[in-house]
């Protein structure tokens, strides 16, 4: 009888372990949303521009919205909730952390919040980051972290449209820690590494 129990327990343990392994193997890695709908969800999450009264600004913001969604700003500047990205906090930042030999960078808050976003930045300052990767303190963003060398190829008028759209976003207070030095990449041959999945902003 004891022997039987022992065997039964062993079989049960094996079944549980294998079952858990299979569960881990088959569970979708990041998002429950099927990839096909993923893009649509991202595009729908971008606030519409229909509530802008001035027709010229509305048309320019619409162009900016197209550029912001197609160029995947949300890919890094998302804010994570408890269940993956919280798309209601559009572009409030914090979802991605890059570690490079030159420092650690967390995706910034792009909403026009006065304290924690781009609210106090002038249009020229925002455009300068998009054109030259150069921040108001004079530091130059690493082009493979924030892909400004790509956005530098936007025409000045497209860059203007992006800024008009960013100014139209809902301001969200979400403070992102400043870039930190140290934390060098330790894997041989690697040029940088990043961590996706956790919100690095301070609540």
């Amino acid at each position, binding site marked *: 009888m004891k022997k039987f129990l022992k065997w039964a327990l062993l079989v049960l343990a094996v079944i549980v372990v294998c079952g858990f392994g299979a569960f881990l193997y088959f569970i979708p890695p*990041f998002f429950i949303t099927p990839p096909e709908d993923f893009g649509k969800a991202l595009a729908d999450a971008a606030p519409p521009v229909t509530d802008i009264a001035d027709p010229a600004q509305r048309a320019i913001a619409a162009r900016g919205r*197209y550029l912001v969604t197609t160029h995947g700003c949300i890919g890094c500047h998302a804010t994570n909730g408890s269940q993956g990205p919280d798309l209601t906090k559009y572009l409030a930042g914090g979802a991605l952390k890059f570690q490079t030999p030159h420092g650690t960078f967390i995706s910034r808050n792009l909403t026009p919040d006065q304290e924690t976003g781009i609210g106090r930045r002038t249009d020229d300052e925002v455009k300068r980051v998009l054109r*030259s990767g150069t921040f*108001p303190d004079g*530091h130059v963003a690493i*082009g493979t972290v924030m892909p400004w060398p790509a956005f530098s190829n936007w025409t000045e008028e497209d860059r203007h449209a992006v800024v008009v759209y960013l100014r139209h976003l809902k301001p969200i207070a979400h403070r992102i820690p400043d870039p930190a030095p140290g934390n060098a990449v330790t894997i041989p*041959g690697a040029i*940088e590494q990043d961590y996706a999945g956790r919100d690095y902003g301070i609540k």
Partner: protein
Amino acid sequence: MTLTKRMRRYACVFVLQTAFVGGLAWLTNIGAGAQPRGKAVYDAHCVECHGASGKGDGPSAAYLIPRPRDFTTGKYKIRSTESGTPPSDEDLIGSVRRGLYGTAMPGWDRLLSDTEIGDVVQYVKSLSPQSGAQPAKPIAIGDGLPSSPASIARGQQAYDKLQCGKCHGTDGRGTGAVATTFEDDWRMPLRAADLTEPWTFHGGATSRDIYLRFRSGMTGTPMPSFADAASEAEMWDLANYVVSLGRKPIWSMDAAEVQQFYTHLDAKAKADPVRRGAQLVDTLGCGLCHSPVDQEKRVLPGMRLAGGMLIRIVPFGDFPTGNLTSDKATGLGDWTNDEIKRVITKGILRDGSRLLPFPMDYGSFSTLTPDDLDAIVAYLRTVPAVSNKVPAASRPFLPVYLWGKFKMLILGSDPPMVFFAGNAGAKGTPR
């Protein structure tokens, strides 16, 4: 008792830490004093584009049009000095301070002090062996000619006579231009200036700035000096004419003009999808992952868009980026248009396998309009073939995979994504 002990320990650590940090700061200060101050400014602000050696080959350089200046040749476009002579210090200081409009070079005016700008200019000059071999010969700029309808009309005649339209188009915006693709002396791509967009003129848009560009030429580019071909008065008339071509920028337009502008932009994109596609591939940053780089993040020579950068996504495996060139065997040459569009918008490869939702951001790309997608495909078809056989993605050993996923999903630890230098593909002979 324990509290005081702990406090004492903290105090001890604090004192030691302060001493260490202070000592370190002292040591670095000594280093900075021994080096030229300009180098310190350069290393802090200029290396990302112009490279550590000043050859214009920083990590971001390969993606910028025009490319960042190679300081080692001592050639500069924006000068107020006679053709064939180097720029004056004021020219260089002005370019740093103001920035170069229409390029990635920002104005450093309020970001750096005057001393820092002066120091960095001296350092940049020292990077060229030719520096100081020839004196700068400043152009004696007269009073110029005030703009008037008559001057503008004469300027238009000079524009035709000097065949400016060959590159800039009869209307200044490229219409009817004979030459449409340009290279600088370093065989890097360039654009002819659109003369109706004065906010993109690298050296500024006043008649004086424009006069200087004719007069001294833009060294290293196909823009010659017209000092011998045109008279002083003609060059000023021409400058007035170019100023008169300037159109309204979008930030000053009213609703009807904005509408008209975007309609025109769409029509232009439809008429020349390859050009539109090239612009999209540049602005979307496809090359940032789909070009292999060296340890300093410089694109390996001739490997733009040829794929092979290794991206490790823990615990999902190694994903070398695909070859996007038109090579039939290893690139997209054999893919149908629909297959290319499917991988861009849905992340489904030719064999039906799926990509993770990042770093290939097909979710965002799926919001591209059908016209823009067609344009991207049209452009990718024209990218010169580079044979680079990129291996398929590989999964890690099963228990490693399961353990990684366990860590990520149950323990909530962040899954790192690692980018590697080097080419994971097998480069064939160029065709």
